[in-house]
């Protein structure tokens, strides 16, 4: 038998979501174990040396490492048990009364051990889509890399991935890397975006592209890579509004590097192995306002849906940590059962990409935060309202809405009327944006 460590809450992932979850769970008095695969805490923030983190939360522009440091310092000053360089090989739910989860862990310093807790927080983050997933064809030479990998090579390893880069995708990491590579002396030939609009935050478009004179080619994509050993060129082509390549528009772009910023996918392999279903629109589990996915599993941060700002990741981590601790402690108090509260579904109407959470547990105290994204740019802004059984519970007017930018609403669960089983998020657009 291998060693078994017992906690009230086990948090998997030591990035911003996991750090916040561990801290908030620990703050309620729960015994918390935090498991991190890498040699130090911080997750992706470790390599995000640019600033822009923490504006919402701290009212300051911090770099990624600075933002992470604020949480890491608190963790180091707490009694949270941090397991670094520890990998969760498998997770299983105990069938016995009270349930709970056992994680089979593999660690360089602690060997192989099991960890048990009645509540589990999945803060596993997300991964990048690769060239294969966006169906770029042609050769497979060195010099094709995701923006996150390029960022790691430059900011952590201190090496330069190439001399002349083409960047596909105008997501935030792609824009950040356009600037970073330029500052390091690489030539960025241009950023290519399949859609008619850029995918990144407005501030990044200005600060990373415009300020450096890097061209943004909308409605263009990369269809083929050339080069036997190292990238020699790519074929770029124009696309129509449906994303189909316009025949005859192909042109060869010489470069030695192709950087891909073509989307992020929540990492939910553990969630799937525990039998959680995924919401097809978020690619994350369906949860309540505390990240609760049922049976003592809580999910937060980018594992739930891909966030635009780390501040919201921390916010969702805190909610998940608090509720996970509440679950664990109530099981202890109730001798093995935690009664679920009454839930209503949150449904996003036409015009939305998605809304998270998918449920609100009405028994939970305090306001519930609903995050949402719209599916097209509304330059004239819109009014977003939440209604139940035809009755508008709250409404908020937004001056402008863009799909890359996540928005949030807060609702007091106590205002949800008796007998209603779903809340609807509705969008009232201006005339000009309806076409």
């Amino acid at each position: 038998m291998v060693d078994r460590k017992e906690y009230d809450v086990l948090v998997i992932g030591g990035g911003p979501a996991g750090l916040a979850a561990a801290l908030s769970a620990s703050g309620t008095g729960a015994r918390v174990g935090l498991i991190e695969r890498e040699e130090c805490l911080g997750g992706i923030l470790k390599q995000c040396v640019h600033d822009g983190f923490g504006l919402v939360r701290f009212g300051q522009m911090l770099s990624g490492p600075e933002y992470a440091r604020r949480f890491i310092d608190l963790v180091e000053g707490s009694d949270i048990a941090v397991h670094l360089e520890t990998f969760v090989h498998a997770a299983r739910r105990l069938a016995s009364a009270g349930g709970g989860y056992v994680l089979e862990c593999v660690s360089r310093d602690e060997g192989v051990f099991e960890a048990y807790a009645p509540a589990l927080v999945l803060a596993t983050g997300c991964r990048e889509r690769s060239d294969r997933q966006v169906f770029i064809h042609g050769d497979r030479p060195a010099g094709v890399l995701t923006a996150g990998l390029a960022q790691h090579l430059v900011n952590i390893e201190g090496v330069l991935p190439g001399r002349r880069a083409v960047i596909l995708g105008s997501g935030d990491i792609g824009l950040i890397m356009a600037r970073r590579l330029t500052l390091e002396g690489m030539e960025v030939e241009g950023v290519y975006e399949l859609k008619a609009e850029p995918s990144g935050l407005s501030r990044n478009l200005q600060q990373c592209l415009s300020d450096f004179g890097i061209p943004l080619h909308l409605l263009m994509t990369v269809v083929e890579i050339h080069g036997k050993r190292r990238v020699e060129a790519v074929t770029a082509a124009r696309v129509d509004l449906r994303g189909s390549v316009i025949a005859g528009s192909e042109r060869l772009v010489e470069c030695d590097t192709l950087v891909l910023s073509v989307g992020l996918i929540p990492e939910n392999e553990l969630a799937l192995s525990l039998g959680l279903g995924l919401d097809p629109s978020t690619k994350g589990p369906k949860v309540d306002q505390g990240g609760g996915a049922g049976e003592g599993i809580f999910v937060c941060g980018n594992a739930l849906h891909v966030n635009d700002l780390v501040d919201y990741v921390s916010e969702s981590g805190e909610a998940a940590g608090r509720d996970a601790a509440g679950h664990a402690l109530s099981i202890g108090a109730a001798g093995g059962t935690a009664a679920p509260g009454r839930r209503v579904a949150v449904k996003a109407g036409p015009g939305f990409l998605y809304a998270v959470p998918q449920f609100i547990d009405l028994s939970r105290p305090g306001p519930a935060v609903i995050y949402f994204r719209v599916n097209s740019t509304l330059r004239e802004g819109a009014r977003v309202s939440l209604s139940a059984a035809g009755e508008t519970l709250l409404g908020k007017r937004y001056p402008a809405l863009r799909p890359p930018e996540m928005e949030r609403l807060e609702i007091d669960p106590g205002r949800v009327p008796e007998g209603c089983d779903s809340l609807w998020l509705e969008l009232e657009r201006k005339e000009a944006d309806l076409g």
Partner: protein
Amino acid sequence: MKLDKLRSALRKRFGDGVEAREDRGSIVLEGQLPSWEARLEAGSRAVGAGSRGVVNDIVADDCAWAASERLDSPRDPGRDEGEKGLEGLSFDVAVIGGGVVGCAVARELAKWRVSTILLEKEEDVAFHASSRNDGMIHDGFAARPGSLKAKFNILGNRLWEALAWELGIEFRRPGSIVLFRNAATQALYPAFAARAAMNHVDGWEYWSPRRVRAEEPNVCDGQHGAFFLPSAGVISPYRATVALAESAVMNGVRVELGTCVKGFEKEGDRIARVRTDRGDFRASVVVNAAGNWADVVASFADDRFFSLHQRRGTDMILDSQAGGLQRHIMAMPSIMQAKSTTKGGGLVTTVEGNILVGPTATELPGRESYATSTSELRTLERHFRINRRLLPSMAITYFAGVRACTWEEDFIIERSRRVANLVHAAGIQSPGLASAPAIAEEVARISLDVLCATMKVSPNASFVAVRDAPLELRRLSLEERAKAVSRNPSYGRIVCRCEEVSEGEIRDAMKSPLPVRSLDAVKRRARPGMGRCHGGFCTPRVMEIVADELGIGIDEVTKKGPGSRIAVGMTKSGLGEGFRG
């Protein structure tokens, strides 16, 4: 006369653009045609017109570049010239080509007291076709009865199980379900059975639609039962090739990677010396296992009695999470497939637990052209109909390989008729992987026959058949794993999250009997980067380990040998500005 008939047929079809002549039994086609398709058609028509092979030297206007691959040896601008470590050496046997056939031949020869050198132009074995196929150990049903393919496939299929055990690699026999799509194909069962009997296939059964459904609950609706071939197996083709090469090295074979054959020096009807970019050396016997360059190697010895054409195959790999949706290999060929030169592809359950979809079969020029295309992937989509639960969106990657095909579409396994000490293992396309152990036995036998004329050959009493399997931590029980980690903590540091590969496993691979110098070579052995994130997370970590083991800078690490560095230099500060703790 057959040649006259061919000439008039070609003139009728292509006008004066093409000429056919006979050269020592082979039919040689020359001239110019507008398209690659026309060139292919001319090549196929020439089959059978001579007593030997077809040499197709027609230039296609739309692929004129391919003509430069006709007789040149492959060029590699990235290679460091100047080092001549092989100059003046002498070997009993020189094997050209580090694919599965060359490596299996080298290991077979190691059972005898002969000195063997294996030459591979790339930085690793299994660089080309042997790492670019579906890993199937075919049952032998599909090969044309009477062909060398049929003979060696059956023999090879019987050898693989024990060989895989010796090599410490995984081999499974999931069996192959060939579905009948309608009553008409179902009626072909007796013909299928007769063909299987003719090829001496090891067992076959008729499965009713109910039986198929019971065995494979996710099978499509409307199937009419199946022809089941229990002997069909799967293996990891690159791991098998690496294991064969390692076993050969452990038993005294000298494997020289990054060494390209440039020609031969002949004395009379024999090859006296092998010329390479790393020096010239003497060899008593030369084995041509040069894959897609085998006709070029034959031409170096003035024995080009055949030429190769390339048939590209694209395979798609589905996420391991879909692996549980199917147990057997499944295919649903159309009636048209029966007349085709290929088997049509299907759904293969790999040893790693993924499902592989493919391969396609498309005639395209380029001996080493592995570009994939949208149309190839679209061709694969029909296979998704076989299993109701599989979706194209489950694909995590796809890749292409190139089959080395003679115009006769059969293997060439023989002692050269013109060069006394040259042995060909050429035109080894599918089912080459399945056939490799049997081909190796035959080629080794011929080689030893040649050697016996000039020297005494005795068995190698110290041959060690068993190669210890590299440790794979994720496959161990928790207790075994705990022991391994306490012995060596680097087994506890997981570097590749998708495939769960530890630092220790990567270091083991780097210390194996064959030199390992690149990320792809590490990937072939220990699998980091094979999973759904394609190395997005683990690449820098693997780079660090490779740089550490090789004693080089991290910016010098390559993806696949010279000319393929991941990084081109250091950043301005040369330091990472993020933090690592």
